[in-house]
């Protein structure tokens, strides 16, 4: 049987989160974006004057910046943005008790297994539906130690000084066109503060759901780890499948103070009518460690390059990325490490799988400034191609000043080897089992870093896709 037919259906493209709830919102702005929409959002959130000014200034920056011509195909985005809803308020206020969340929304998250996960495995949970956080909770154990885990809006209201000290300092509005857009219309997202020396032993999770058709979600997350603090934050995202395109553009800012350690895990499984353009950046101070674990499985087009600015001596940044591009999908992902201080180290590991007409691109930057003596960085990208119509690209940028850096980059591209398949089949595995095993083995170095339930889920999805692939 021809290889192409055999592997048809391999992948994660049987989307199981595509169900739709009835539209349930208490307020939404008109489709499209103008100054009036920005003012409305700010008014609904009862924001201080400075935030409204910040938003309006960002809107001007957004309008003045041209659409990027690199990365994915954004030629239809402008038209899409004219039609989407930039702000949809699903309920009057955010709830702290699961029982108070409206039934339709509750059902959604229950189908996604959120409340169950919270009880068993998590230190805290946030859930965003359309434009607002509908639910946020944190275990008593941590709130009593001064941990703040709240919606970004409540962060601004209840901790104005801490908020303003860091907000938009890591990613200013002018950073790029979509950071400017987010800055103008942001709504929802998490505000997390871990006090000095507090070390969370289970993860915090935020869950993002877009339900309505033609929806734009603009989450904004600000995370601050004080000296010696430790935490792990997981975000997951899904949406129903519509024939029209939706849009998600988040901005995530992370501040790691001295000796702190933070891991940010993303399992992005948007439906494949979603544009997903996200800016994520961490500033890493002395001896702190930042880890981005970025899994991109869904969306129509994702452009996302989590970055670490290593500004303190001995800082370390780690970026692990898995991309899976199936028919019609383009994952343009990677990572950036910027070495500013001496003795800083970093590593980027990227694994991508392209199937059908899917395209995965690795795009990354390794920059070492002159003062960053003894900086060390290693980048490894591996791509697996399943079909002859699949595509993979690698676009690394390595920019080094001065002789005291040691930098390496390696990338390989391969397909599932006939000899590997033959070997496994000679040991009694079916072809589909063998292929699933090879794909699993390929992503294993990163998948094993995932929280157990996600790793199991990922493996299950791969196996699921192999079923019926041999006729």
């Amino acid at each position, binding site marked *: 049987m021809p290889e192409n037919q055999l592997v048809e259906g391999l992948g994660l493209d049987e989307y199981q989160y595509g169900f739709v709830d009835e539209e349930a919102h208490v307020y939404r702005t008109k489709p499209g974006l103008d100054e009036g929409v920005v003012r409305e959002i700010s008014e609904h959130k009862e924001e201080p004057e400075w935030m409204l000014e910040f938003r309006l200034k960002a809107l001007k920056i957004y309008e003045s910046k041209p659409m990027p011509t690199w990365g994915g195909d954004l030629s239809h985005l402008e038209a899409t943005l004219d039609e989407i809803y930039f702000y949809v308020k699903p309920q009057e206020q955010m709830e702290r008790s699961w029982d108070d969340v409206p039934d339709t929304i509750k059902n959604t998250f229950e189908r996604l297994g959120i409340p169950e996960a919270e009880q068993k495995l998590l230190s805290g949970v946030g859930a965003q539906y359309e434009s607002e956080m509908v639910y946020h909770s944190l275990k008593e154990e941590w709130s009593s130690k001064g941990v703040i885990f709240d919606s970004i809006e409540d962060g601004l209201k209840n901790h104005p000084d801490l908020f303003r000290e860091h907000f938009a300092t890591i990613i200013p509005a002018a950073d790029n066109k979509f950071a400017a857009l987010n800055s103008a219309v942001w709504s929802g997202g998490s505000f997390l503060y871990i006090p000095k020396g507090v070390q969370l032993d289970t993860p915090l999770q935020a869950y993002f759901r877009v339900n309505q058709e033609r929806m734009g979600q603009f989450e904004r997350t600000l995370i601050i780890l004080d000296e010696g603090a430790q935490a792990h934050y997981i975000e997951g995202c899904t949406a129903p499948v519509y024939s029209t395109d939706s849009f998600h553009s988040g901005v995530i800012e992370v501040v790691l103070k001295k000796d702190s350690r933070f891991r940010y895990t993303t399992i992005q499984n948007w439906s494949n009518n979603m544009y997903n353009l996200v800016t994520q950046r961490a500033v890493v101070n002395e001896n702190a460690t930042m880890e981005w674990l970025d899994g991109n499985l869904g969306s129509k087009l994702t452009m996302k390059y989590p970055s670490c600015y290593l500004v303190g001596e001995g800082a370390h940044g780690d970026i692990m990325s898995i991309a899976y591009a199936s028919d019609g999908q383009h994952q343009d992902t990677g990572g950036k490490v910027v070495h500013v201080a001496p003795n800083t180290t970093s590593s980027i590991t990227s694994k991508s799988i392209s199937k059908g007409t899917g395209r995965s691109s690795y795009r990354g930057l390794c920059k070492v400034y002159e003062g960053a003596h003894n900086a060390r960085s290693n980048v490894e990208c591996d791509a697996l*191609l399943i079909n002859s119509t699949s595509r993979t*690209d*690698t676009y690394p940028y390595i920019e080094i*000043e*001065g*002789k005291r850096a*040691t930098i*390496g*980059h390696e990338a390989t591209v*391969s397909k599932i080897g006939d000899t590997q398949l033959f070997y496994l089949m000679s040991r009694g595995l079916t072809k589909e089992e063998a292929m699933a095993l090879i794909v699993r083995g390929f992503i294993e170095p990163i998948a094993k870093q995932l929280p157990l339930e996600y790793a199991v889920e990922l493996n299950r999805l791969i196996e699921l896709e192999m079923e019926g692939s041999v006729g």
Partner: protein
Amino acid sequence: MSNSPQAAEAPIAEEETPSSLDESAVERISEGAPSWLSERRRHAWSVFEDTPFPSTRSEEWRYTDVSRVVNLADLRLVTDGGLAENGSRPAGLVAAMEEDLAASGHAVLVDGSVVHVDLDPALEEQGVILTSLRSAVHEHGDLLEELLATEVVPPEDGKLQALNAALWTDGVLLYVPRNVKLDLPVRVTRWVSHAGSAVFARTLIVAEPESQLSYVEELLSDDFDQRTFVSSAVEVIARDGAQIQFVSIQQLGRDVFCQSAQRTLAHRDAKLDTLNVSLGASVTRLDLNSRLLGPGAHSELLGLYFGDEDQHFDHNTSQDHVAPDTGSDLLYKGALDDRAQSAFRGMIRVHRDAQRTDAYQTNRNLLLSDECRANSLPNLEIQADDVRCSHGATVGQLDSEALFYLLSRGLSQDQAERLIVLGFLGDVLARLPLGGVVEKVTRAIERKLEHV
């Protein structure tokens, strides 16, 4: 050239009045040329005018701001090979010409015009052509009409390629017929003598099926005190089963902007290797595209650069696998000292039908000072699934263990460092061991190392 006394040397022409780079120059160069050529030049000029100057906003020119490197309005076009008025040859050129290396033939260009050609008569009898493009226009018009600045390096490739196609004054044609094998390299010396001049030359190399040739060119000049522009377009075609080795050794003087656009076409079972050595000039820009067009075609792309003071190198390479069962292997290595900067941008493109491609790409940089900079962008674009592709890039410093070992053997710090740099770069030369090239380049590197 002492080994080929039978070839008469062309007299070095008297210097013409140099002129500015504009449309009237196109008309003047076209005088007496066949109509296809004047039309081609005019077309190239219109492409030049319609193409915006490369900006650092474009990916391919990210690290070289060409508008700050050269101002075309300040340059004078030299249309006829001019030397000092008394016609005596500069010491640098004489030294290069007198180097007694075995060769199939020689060509000497001064300021973009061929002033001497000789070819082994036995090869001439077999139909090998080594001549100036200016005479080839008349003697081999059909060949040039078909291949010069058309499919290989057309003006549409870019602003500077268009400028060269409009204003080229002369260059070299090397044509080797079917089954003819050149045992010795063709050696070409290109000398530039005028500060503030713009020199446009082209090279066209055609190897017919099952033929074999090697071509070694050297670009030389004294140091200048004024920005001088040396532009080359190199077109290389290896037909089925042909084998070509193309070597360019650039040791131009300071204040030169050396720009070279090269494309190689390798047809079925052809083997087409290139080596570009960049040691001189203030700013060097190389665009090299290797196209693998027939099954079994294979290319090695080798490069070596060593920069000091404020030298700037920008190497932009691409390997295009168009046909299935093709291979390519790129190795570019560079060392940088003082405030020197380098950019390497390499692209492997595997086209949809190019199954069973083997493509590799490696860029290694050795940094010797705190102020130097290395940028490396090794890119892959793969659209076929049955491929073996990989790339790697490293930026690092002198290996401290190797240094320690050499010091413990009694070498001075300087000696040890030189030895390591030489070893690091020499690696590339070992992959294309053409007679004379290894020694020549090694000597040039050693001379440069003495100033470190």
